[in-house]
Every structure is written in C-alpha cells, then in structure tokens.
C-alpha cells in the first residue's frame, strides 16, 4: 500500500511496527505532492526541509519507544494558521511576504503531538469564498473532476486530503468553510463548537463565527485530530474550559436508539436530485442501524444567509482594518499617511475581500447599524433558539451539506449572491455556535462526491463522531479514491 493512500491509524501502525520510518513516509508524501500538485493546486507553500527535519525527530521518538498516534504523521494546514518562521499569506497578496513571529495554538498542539508539517494550503483570500477561486495564489481544482471547484474556503485542505497529498489537514469554518469543501471532495470535515478549539494565531475573518477543525480520510482520524487540537487556551479568552473527551475511545458506541432529527426546512424543492437520493439512502441506513428518525423544524433557516452575510462582513470590515501597511504586510508607495493606508489596502486585497469589507462597512455605518447589523444579531438569536428547541427532541440532526455537488470553475464568480446562497445548509451551525461535520455519503451521476451533514448540540462532538463512525462502518463511500 502506498503511504499516501493510508489513513493516520494505518500509517501509525506501520510506523510503530517499524515497517517504515517517518522520514520515508514524509519523503513519499513530498513526492506525491510534487507529482499531483500541477493538476490540483492545493498548496501555497511546501516546506520539504522542515518536514524532513521534523520527520527525523519523530523517528528518534519512535526509536525511543514513544510512538503516539500522531508521531511522525505528515499533515498540512491551511495558510490561515500562523506558523513561526514559515510564510503565512491567508491567500492574500497583502501578506505575500509575511513571516509570523509566533504560531497558532492549534498548530502548536498538533506539532507537539508529533505531526510533521508538509506545507501551507491554498484557500480563498482571508477565508472569504465558497470555491477557492479568490486565492491570490491561483485556484485549487477538485481532485475528482479538475474542471470543478473543490469548495471553499478551506478548498486546499479538502483537495489535499482527496488528492492524497497529506494524511490529514486543518481548516477553518466560518460559514461552512470546512464542511462544504469536505463534502465536495469526499472527505470527512468537522467544525467544532465555537470555543472548543483555540483561535489564537488564526488570522481572523469573523471572530464570533470562526472555528478551527480537521479534514481527514475517515471518522477515526477526525476524532484523533480533534482530540489533539481541542481544549482551553489561556491565549484565547473565547476558548471554553470544558474537559476534552477521548473522542476515539467512544467511537464504536453505535446509534441504536439515537434520535436523529431531519429539519424539514433543509429538505426543500430545488435540492439536487442526486443529493436528495444520497440523503434518503443515508436516512435508510441510520434507520437500519436502529436510530429513530424524527422530523424537526428550524423555522428561521431561510434567514440564515442574510443574517450571516451581515454579521460576517461587519466583523470582517473591523478585523481587516489592521491591514494598513504600517506594521506588517504590503505597503504601497504613497505621499501621505492616509494615502498610504488606502493604496496599500487597495493594492493588497482582492475583489471578494473588498466586496465584503464594503458590505460590512455599509452595515456598520451610521444610520444603518440598527437596521442591518443589530437586526441581524437579533435574527441570530432566533436561529439559535431554533436549534435549542429542536435539540430538546433529538440528539443530532441530519442534513445535506450543500444543495448541489461541486460546481464548475468560473460558474458563480460573476454572481456573488449565487455563491453566497450555496452556503445555506452550513451557515446556521456557525450562527448557533454548535458543532457539525460532513462525511462522504454518495456520488452524483457524474461521479462527484456528496456529503452528509450531522449537526450536534454544543460540545456534542462525541455524539456526531459516533453517529458518523456508525455510518462509515455501514457504508463504503469513504473508501473510494479520486483517480488523480
């Protein structure tokens, strides 16, 4: 078996039994990256020297008999995570030469668990996008069909897993940016509950919605990655002091008697027929496994996209004010200070980022603050209440991740509103702050992956992982590989 086809737990066994070394595994992954990268474009920066050095260190640890699950496992992370000494661009021209002086906590935790960093992954600029077409470093293509988008904004994170360029990756999810690309690329992607994983050192897009999570080949790997990065961080005052369960230990509990809710607002006309079919089959599978299927209602679903694009853009316009050319990032040649701010930002930001800054600035501006921003915050409360009410009767909810499989490159770039509407099923979990995951649940007639979303209660990651694991044991969708 090729190293690049392995899961984390498979490579871990091989490393532990000394069938191969981490240096050998890492070299194999670097070769794989080199061979498929021209077709996919998952990476912004590949770090072979650092990777091989980290792998050599991991091999010493393994030789000393201390092989933890992630020791020597080659991974890659979205270019939104600060990595000390390694360029971090966030997909933007404005950070083209930015070398962070410190690292993100989530990456530090993964590194301290023994993981080996292969490089930094492509993404929509500042995580703003659903297709990975807004990166300043070129588009990423879907490994299942390179004429299609991989999803976004963690498109590189999903494509790298699907193209077997990394065993697992980290992404971030503000409105679906882990789950939607995971769905489009046929991998597992989990957005933890807000506060479950530290956001320290993660370049901010919309701070009340952003959350870090893993993308992997299967649910067991997802549980392992989440376990490694979760937990309170004194450097992020919004991370929560709730004990981190051993997610892997309870994976096999099964779903007998589990109450699975189907929010009726998510099963609407206009859902792609292949997606509809995959959802029906998934529901049948769960029924067969002994789960109880219950219809529930999330009545404010139809307002989620509008709410999100006011709150997220408002927070973005504020967060991105820091890019002014003074302390770091691109600085334009200009006569005066104001001119320098304006020119630096205008040269450094791409069109989608400018559009969202404009929308957010508008929503926060005098005379419109209450009508747009505060109104959206109130509707957010109603959306959260919907979830609380629904979860009074069910343990998890099952929905599609996206209304359609991956669309074509260029199909929605000229119509931002259509692009925004493709996030309709993923945005509500961010607004409610709860956890949700995407897992492979079928394929379209044209061979594109279709994902299933399991939404859990706040800090209910254990339950959705169990439900995901049960589904995975009963199906073989996750074992299919893109032919790239």
């Amino acid at each position, binding site marked *: 078996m090729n190293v690049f086809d392995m899961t984390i737990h498979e490579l871990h066994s091989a490393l532990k039994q000394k069938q191969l070394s981490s240096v050998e595994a890492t070299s194999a992954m670097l070769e794989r990256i080199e061979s498929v990268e021209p077709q996919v474009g998952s990476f912004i920066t590949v770090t072979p020297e650092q990777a091989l050095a980290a792998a050599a260190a991991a091999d010493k640890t393994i030789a000393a008999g201390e092989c933890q699950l992630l020791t020597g496992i080659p991974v890659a992370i979205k270019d939104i995570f600060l990595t000390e000494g390694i360029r971090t661009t966030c997909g933007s021209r404005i950070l083209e*030469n930015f070398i962070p002086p410190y690292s993100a906590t989530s990456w530090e935790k993964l590194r301290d668990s023994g993981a080996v960093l292969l490089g930094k992954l492509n993404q929509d600029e500042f995580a703003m996008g659903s297709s990975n077409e807004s990166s300043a470093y070129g588009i990423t293509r879907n490994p299942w069909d390179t004429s299609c988008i991989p999803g976004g904004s963690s498109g590189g994170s999903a494509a790298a897993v699907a193209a077997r360029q990394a065993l697992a990756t980290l992404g971030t999810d503000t409105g679906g940016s882990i789950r939607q690309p995971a769905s489009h690329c046929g991998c597992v992607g989990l957005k933890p509950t*807000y506060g479950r994983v530290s956001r320290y050192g993660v370049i901010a897009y919309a701070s009340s919605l952003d959350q870090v999570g893993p993308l992997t080949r299967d649910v067991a790997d997802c549980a392992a990655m989440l376990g490694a990065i979760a937990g309170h961080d004194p450097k992020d005052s*919004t991370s929560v002091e709730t004990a981190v369960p051993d997610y892997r230990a309870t994976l096999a509990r099964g779903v007998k008697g589990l109450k699975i809710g189907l929010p009726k607002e998510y099963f609407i006309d206009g859902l792609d027929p292949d997606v509809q079919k995959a959802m029906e089959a998934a529901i049948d599978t769960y029924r067969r496994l002994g789960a109880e299927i219950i219809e529930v209602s999330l009545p404010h679903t139809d307002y989620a996209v509008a709410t999100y694009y006011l709150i997220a853009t408002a927070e973005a316009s504020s967060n991105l004010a820091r890019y002014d*050319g003074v*302390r770091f990032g691109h600085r334009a040649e200009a006569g005066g200070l*104001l001119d320098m701010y*304006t020119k630096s*930002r205008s040269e450094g930001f791409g069109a989608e980022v400018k559009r969202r800054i404009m929308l957010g600035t508008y929503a926060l501006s005098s005379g419109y603050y209450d009508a747009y921003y505060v109104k959206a915050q*109130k509707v957010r409360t109603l959306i*959260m209440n919907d979830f609380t009410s629904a979860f009074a009767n069910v343990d998890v909810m099952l929905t599609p991740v996206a209304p359609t499989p991956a669309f074509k490159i260029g199909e929605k770039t000229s119509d931002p509103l259509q692009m925004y509407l493709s996030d309709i099923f993923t945005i509500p979990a961010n607004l409610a702050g709860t956890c949700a995951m995407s897992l492979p649940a079928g394929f379209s007639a044209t061979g594109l992956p279709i994902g299933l979303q399991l939404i859990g209660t706040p800090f209910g990651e254990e339950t959705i992982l169990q439900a995901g694991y049960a589904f995975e044991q009963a199906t073989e969708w996750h074992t299919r590989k893109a032919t790239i």
Partner: protein
Amino acid sequence: MLHTRGNYQDFFGVGAMKITVADVEYVARLARLELTAGEKEQFAGQMDAILGYVEKLKEVNTDGVVPTSHAVPMENAFRADEVRPSIGLHNALANAPDRSGSFFAVPKVIE
C-alpha cells in the same frame, strides 16, 4: 469631497434600495479603499443585489429579542496580572515595511 452625514442619509434613504456609484465611493472612503471606475460600477450592482436580498430580514419580528454577539454564554475571562515573555522588539519589527531604529516608520503626518 466627503458627503456630509445629511447627504449620506438622503442618498440611501432607509429602505430605499438603490446603491449608486456615489454610495460606493462614500463607503469605500470609510473603508480606506480606492476603487477603479469599473470596480465601482460592479460593486454598485452587486451590493444592490446583496442588500436587496438581506432586506428579507425585515419580515422577521424581532421585537423584544436580545441581539447575540457571541455564540457561547460567557462571563469575563480573567487571568492573573503577571509579567510574561513577549515576542520582543526584533520580532515585532521583523515584518515592518519600513522602520527607523526601534520604531515603525510611516510617511510624515505633520509637516
């Protein structure tokens, strides 16, 4: 020339959606962005469509609803007020586009 507050209100008129190029120019100035003529045209149309879409929130009765700014209920997060190592002057200035000794340098503000 900046619009005055009064002009700005007139321009938009709460509820009357039609984002013009002048509106885009005004918001761009607030956001410290400089747009090309083509971008202004494009953004006016796109912002008009998006803001038209978000108008649907008006359908929702939010009387007495408390706005949510944060998903997880939380009290203030306190920590001990202790001196800890920081990244230091060298690291803090390492990414500076321009510097002067131990300072960030910028174009002259006062003549």
